[in-house]
């Protein structure tokens, strides 16, 4: 296409833009049609614009005939008096919506009612046993939960004495149900035992073995009288004295038995929790499962984590894996996930690697997992590469993509790119792609856009993500596109940035990239002006330095773009914003330029302004401007 023809293309696009909004003059219409006959590219654009306009023209007119002005007047008067029935709150549409919701609600309510009735829960139901004993209120206390969760042997909760008052005569089932428990005797043993332990504690400096020996020795009298030592242990654990409880728990741990572990489980969450945990740790494999279950109960991690944290990484992670196996059977809850993730994260790189291998695990909250993984990008990156190269299953792909949005190992890029092109999680993958560093992902976004793989929303979201991740990178990329004259890509980028700039807080990030795109090389005059206008609108005063730099670099032939710069600056800061650029001009010229800038139609202002700027640009060495930075 020759020079004259290119010039006509620009005019044609301007006419097309104007024709979208208003009637063209006969002359302009004639010249536009002449141009379109010989220019397939503009004809394609014109056809699209025409379709949009046609579609708009065919939108149904508002049904004015349905208006009843007198009724509306009455409603307005009632509203002024404060008596107007709010049709918005109860109008036909809302009524329809409510009816629809009620209709849908009616179905499950009816089914649930029928079911309850059939089970006898509702009065007059089918059940023949209306006096079915009801399960008591389930407390959330750790000990209670542990009793329910325990499976390591007979639980103290099944002991009828467990819920009895601690003072009084009780039957101890361990003696065949006949022996009587004498609390006065226990009190004496307790006093003597406590003194012994205190002395040992002071003398031995708290050495566990001495301590336990003392406990064992002290309890011999009790044992010799035929009372099982287990009973003493249970009483000591319940006693509330930390010294007695510590000794009793460690004793149980040393002599690990299933019933002893069950007693320790029961103590978790109470005053002897710390001692019980120490006892469970001492109990070795037998105590492990109890601790793993206890981990998921309220307050569990705080008690258990220090003990587990002392283990070697491989043991600790194996323990954590076991704890996850014993997680409650319910939908993943963020708090549960976070406590487990925190535990695993304590084991450094090995822990993060384990977290990566749990991506997609339905028992864990994906967002919490990604958050933890992102805190150690290097180790997580290595593990992620392993995962994506290991042919992940479908349900894991989404979680992997979410992690790759935060951690960017270069070796995983190809996986992400494939997902963005043809995966089932395309939109998610495109976002992750946009967050990847370097210019390759941005090139890929343009390619995806060119291939029409992105909806406007997905395109806007992708460029928003790219800008939020690293806005200077996008600006640099824009500059490169312009410098290399990559017109098609520059136009796609302009469109993407324009859409993204509509999102709150993203516009200001997009503004420098839009100005960079307006540099000479790729876009035509109209598009450069468009980019500048959007940049000014989105970036406000923060984009002034970029516009000033662009203005300074413009050649004498780029009057039109210079005019667009002035309009953009004027839009940002009014007359004061452009005055410094006009210092070298005559007063008359300056007045004319400012007049143009005050014009209401920016497009025609620009053309006139461009003419005015010719002498201004040619004497630019006389002009001064100061970079606000």
């Amino acid at each position, binding site marked *: 296409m020759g020079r004259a023809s290119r010039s006509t293309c620009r005019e044609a696009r301007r006419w097309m*833009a104007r*024709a*979208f*909004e*208003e*009637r*063209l003059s006969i002359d302009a*219409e004639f010249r*536009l*049609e002449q141009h379109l006959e010989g220019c397939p590219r503009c*004809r394609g654009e*014109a*056809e*699209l*614009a*025409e*379709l*949009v*306009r*046609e*579609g*708009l*023209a*065919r*939108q*149904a*007119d*508002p*049904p*004015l005939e349905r*208006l009843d*002005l007198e009724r*509306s*007047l009455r*409603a*307005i*008067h009632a*509203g*002024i008096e404060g008596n*107007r029935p*709010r*049709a*918005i709150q109860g*109008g*036909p549409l809302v009524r329809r919506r409510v009816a629809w919701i009620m209709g849908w609600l009616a179905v499950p309510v009816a089914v649930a009612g029928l079911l309850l009735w059939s089970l006898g829960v509702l009065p007059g139901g089918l059940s023949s046993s209306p006096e079915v004993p009801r399960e008591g209120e389930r407390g959330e206390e750790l000990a209670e939960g542990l009793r329910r969760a325990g499976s390591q042997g007979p639980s103290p909760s099944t002991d009828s004495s467990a819920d009895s008052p601690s003072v009084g005569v009780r039957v101890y089932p361990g003696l065949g149900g006949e022996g009587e428990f004498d609390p006065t005797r226990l009190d004496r043993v307790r006093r003597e035992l406590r003194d012994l332990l205190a002395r040992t504690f002071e003398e031995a400096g708290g050495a566990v073995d001495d301590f336990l020996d003392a406990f064992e020795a002290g309890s011999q009298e009790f044992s010799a009288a035929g009372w099982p030592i287990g009973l003493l242990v249970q009483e000591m654990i319940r006693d509330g004295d930390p010294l007695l409880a510590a000794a009793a728990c460690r004793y149980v741990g040393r002599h690990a038995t299933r019933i002893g572990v069950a007693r320790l489980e029961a103590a978790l969450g109470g005053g002897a929790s710390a001692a019980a945990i120490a006892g469970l740790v001492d109990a070795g494999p037998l105590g492990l499962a109890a601790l793993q279950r206890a981990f998921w109960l309220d307050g569990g991690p705080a008690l258990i984590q220090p003990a587990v944290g002392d283990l070697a990484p491989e043991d600790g992670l194996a323990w954590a894996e076991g704890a996850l196996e014993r997680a409650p059977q319910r939908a993943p809850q963020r708090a549960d996930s976070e406590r487990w993730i925190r535990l695993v994260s304590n084991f450094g790189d090995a822990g993060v690697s384990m977290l990566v291998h749990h991506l997609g695990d339905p028992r864990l909250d994906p967002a919490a997992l990604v958050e933890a993984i992102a805190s150690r990008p290097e180790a997580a990156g290595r593990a992620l590469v392993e995962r994506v190269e290991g042919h992940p299953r479908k349900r894991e792909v989404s979680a992997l993509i979410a992690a790759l949005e935060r951690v960017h190992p270069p070796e995983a890029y190809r996986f992400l790119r494939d997902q963005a092109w043809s995966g089932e999680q395309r939109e998610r993958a495109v976002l992750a792609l946009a967050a990847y560093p370097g210019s390759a992902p941005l090139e890929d976004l343009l390619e995806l856009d060119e291939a*029409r793989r992105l909806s*406007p929303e997905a395109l806007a979201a992708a460029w928003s993500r790219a800008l939020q991740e690293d806005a200077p990178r996008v600006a640099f990329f824009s500059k490169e596109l312009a410098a290399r004259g990559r017109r098609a890509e520059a136009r796609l980028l302009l*469109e993407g940035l*324009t859409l993204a700039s*509509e999102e709150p807080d993203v516009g200001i990030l997009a503004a420098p990239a839009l100005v960079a795109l307006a540099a000479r090389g790729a876009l035509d005059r109209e598009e450069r002006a*468009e980019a500048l*206008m*959007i940049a000014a*609108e989105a970036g406000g005063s923060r984009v002034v330095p970029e516009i000033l730099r662009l203005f300074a670099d413009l050649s004498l032939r780029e009057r039109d773009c210079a005019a667009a710069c002035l*309009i953009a600056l004027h*839009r940002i800061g009014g007359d004061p914003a452009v005055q410094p650029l006009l210092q070298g001009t005559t007063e008359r010229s300056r007045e004319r330029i400012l007049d143009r800038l005050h014009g*209401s*139609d*920016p*497009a025609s202002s620009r053309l006139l302004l461009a003419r005015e700027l010719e002498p201004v640009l040619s004497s630019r060495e006389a002009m001064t401007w100061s970079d606000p930075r």
Partner: protein
Amino acid sequence: MGGMNASMGLSRMGNAASQDGPSGRERVWIEEAREGDRQAFDRLVRAHFHGIYALVHRLVGNHEDAEDLAQEVFIKAYRSLGYYRGEGSFAGWLRRIALHLARDHQRRWGRRPHLGSLEEEQHPAPGPGEGEAGMRELTRRVARALEELPTSLRAALVLRVLEGRDYEEVAEATGVKPGTVRTQVMKARRRLERALRPWLRGDE
């Protein structure tokens, strides 16, 4: 491209009032209404109700809500007459209230207008060159794309392109600068074009 201007009649509503403040008669009505004269206010309602209703209808997409919101506009206008200083047109001031209310309405009810919801989607969708069926599909697609526009862009497009108002009027109603209106219309057009492009190319 022969039809470039043939179907240019998008501006289907005349301007209800001049741009440089209310007319003499209107100014009198406003003054009387400010002093509590309901009949004078009724005259203002009669002069502008249809225009405001039409604008709101294009924004919210259904008669019931549009009628209700239009009434709300005048109730609010009556209560705020003291703030109207007569610097811009009365119609422009009403339009500004209408846009605020329409925006609040959509924010509050979280629903988009359903301009094209009466027309059912067809499978496979007719192409753009398939006569009346193609045109119906075009209308439906444009309606759907309009629904997807952010309120600010839709308001600018409706006022500028469908109602044929100039940049100053649109700016007065939307509370932005005329230059911003142009950008908003351009963005809206690009969005609509983008929404139609795959269909035009037969990519769907």
